[in-house]
């Protein structure tokens, strides 16, 4: 009897979690979205009254709520749309999962939006939902983290994988003083972007200039603060000769910076991080763990996603390699991507140094 009761309770709990989970995230996401549409409403009235309610709405789906980097992308998207005077919807799933995004895609399809720009939580899992959206005539582009080639018209890439690999390897080489041991602290072992950057770094490392560098380990902190600290401390104690840690993930680099500084270690850190989060750790003296690091400008990336969405919808580009278009950020060309699809590359990563960090830490 007791067992039966317990299993019944668990079933109720599971159902409740689904209901509460979905309900919660929908509400969460719906609130800002409504606000956004309201804000944009006058523009709609000004342009065309006759248009059906949701026609001409450009949607953006981020990875998850509370991710400051994604927030900035959304902000850029919003700014560009405001400047163009177009209607838009911005949605943030409550958790960084594919199914949360699928729910949102289906909702947007039902609302018959014009385009969806999405920072994918999974390369393949979104395919059925996105294919259905494309079949309904909605233009799809992925931003930041790509979907597979079949589920998008084009990917808006923050920087070419090859450029990132090259930039990070040069930083490692510089910080290590030309030779010695170094390690990578990554996010999850399945993250698409992390793995392609790591692969690019390994490729660059084959060059003669990097022959004296030894990559001792690729550790995964799962983008969890506590776990990333554990992994960093393990790297420090397992490899006493370690000179450099490269963390191409914003949570990882912050956790590593704190762990290295607290341990009073002389290991140097570089990678990809948010300036506001890293401001306390960037400096060239021994009291700071990170002499410099990189990131692209997420606001510009969000803007570019907005311009690409518009270009896809008005037919300026179709997403085929060789298409070109011009927007407020400059001229862009659609090129072949490594996964067989096409992409538009925003530009090389931007270096944050002790000189410019004070100015950038308040930006994002």
């Amino acid at each position, binding site marked *: 009897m007791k067992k039966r009761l317990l299993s019944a*309770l*668990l079933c*109720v*709990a599971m159902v*409740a*979690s689904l209901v*509460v*989970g979905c309900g*919660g995230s929908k*509400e*969460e996401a719906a609130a800002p979205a409504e606000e956004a549409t309201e804000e944009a409403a006058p523009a709609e009235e000004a342009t065309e009254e006759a248009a059906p309610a949701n026609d001409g709405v450009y949607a953006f789906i981020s990875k*998850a*709520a*509370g*991710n*400051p980097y994604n*927030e900035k992308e959304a902000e850029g998207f919003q700014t560009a749309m405001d400047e163009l005077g177009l209607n838009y919807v911005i949605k*943030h799933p*409550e958790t960084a999962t594919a199914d949360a995004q699928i729910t949102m895609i289906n909702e947007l399809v039902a609302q018959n939006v014009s385009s969806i720009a999405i920072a994918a939580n999974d390369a393949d899992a979104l395919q059925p939902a996105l294919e259905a959206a494309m079949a309904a005539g909605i233009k799809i582009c992925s931003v930041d983290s790509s979907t597979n080639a079949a589920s998008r018209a084009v990917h808006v890439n923050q920087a070419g994988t090859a450029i990132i690999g090259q930039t990070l390897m040069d930083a490692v080489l510089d910080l290590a003083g030309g030779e010695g041991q170094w390690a990578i602290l990554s996010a999850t*072992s399945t993250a698409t972007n992390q793995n392609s950057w790591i692969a690019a770094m390994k490729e660059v490392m084959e060059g003669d200039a990097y022959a004296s560098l030894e990559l001792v380990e690729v*550790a*995964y902190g799962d983008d*969890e*603060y*506590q*776990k990333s*600290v*554990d*992994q960093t*401390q*393990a790297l420090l*104690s*397992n490899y006493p000769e370690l000179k450099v840690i490269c963390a191409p993930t914003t949570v990882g680099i*912050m*956790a590593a910076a*704190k762990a290295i500084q*607290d*341990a009073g270690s002389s290991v140097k850190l570089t990678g990809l991080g948010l300036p*506001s*989060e*890293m*401001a*306390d*750790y960037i400096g060239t003296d021994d009291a700071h763990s990170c002499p410099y690091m990189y990131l692209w400008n997420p606001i510009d990336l969000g803007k570019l996603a907005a311009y690409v969405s518009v270009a896809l919808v008005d037919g300026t580009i179709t997403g085929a390699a060789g298409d070109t278009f011009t927007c407020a950020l400059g001229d862009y060309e659609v090129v072949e991507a490594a996964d067989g699809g096409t992409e538009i590359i925003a530009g090389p990563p931007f270096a944050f140094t002790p000189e410019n960090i004070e100015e950038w*830490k308040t930006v994002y």
Partner: protein
Amino acid sequence: MNKKFDLKKLTSSREMSLVIVLIVLCVFIQLRNSTFLQFGTIEAMLKNYAVMMIMALGMMCVLLTGGIDIAIGSTLAFSGMFSALIMRDHPGVPVIGGFLISMVVGMVLGAVIGVVISKGKVPPIVATLGFMNIYRGCTYLIADSRWVAAYQVPEGFKAFAQSYYLTGGLLNNMITVIIICYVIFFIALKWTTAGRRVYAVGSNAEAAEVSGINVDSVKIGVYSLMGLLSGLGGALWVSLYASAQGDMATGLEMDVIAACVVGGVSLNGGRGTVPGVFLGGLIMAIIGKALPLIGVSQFWQSAIKGLIILFAVILNVVTQRTMDKNALKRREM
């Protein structure tokens, strides 16, 4: 007779089986990596897992009454974020102020959960499931979906987790807080009326009610206490990691519950001890800290973690069953 009984109790007690697991773990890890049993490593481990170990105490009380609280990660995030936001906007707030704000906020959040469960007669797992999402959502809302960055957290507050002033230079502050919490809970649960009432409610709620214990207020009490410790955890988290994120401590509830279960706390209520939870928390901390040290592939680490937890729990259950059988035998004789 008396002495013999004590000896038997010691060798067959549940805590003893945990100590054995702990020793085996430590020896194995030490053989694989000689840097493990060093002051620095142990200190770093305790610092990094202080929050989990402290919250396990509150979870034990909740489990003792036959309840469960899976909203603690969200409670921690909300109270930690609340306190961090106030400190960001008013850098003059003293360190103790930051802690008190977080703890009071956490206690209020916990009390709300307690009232819903006891007065609303909602099953604890369902109620806390709801609050897990509510509090997490509210955390994003109050923070406007942003982080409180390292440079925005007051220096004194960040320094707390790295200093030794509570014990006058002997032990790290985080570790001191762990010790204080465990001593208080050990005394309170063993020798105070309130502590015994928690056990009474969990062992047999109806009997407790009949004997004049207000079951509802005991339940509200334990959830408030859980909230208070989550608030403390939130403040420690912000101090240790020098930042507050909306998604901080996601999934922490599972580690905390695992620490309790490994420590021999029964999910049916009424059973569990402070020393057991301490050992359970230590085992969880060692698993988290040491697996990266022994050079096992990343992909194996999660599986090994699960295996160790299962093994510890099975060992614990077997010991318990033997103890029950022996007790029954004695009664029959």
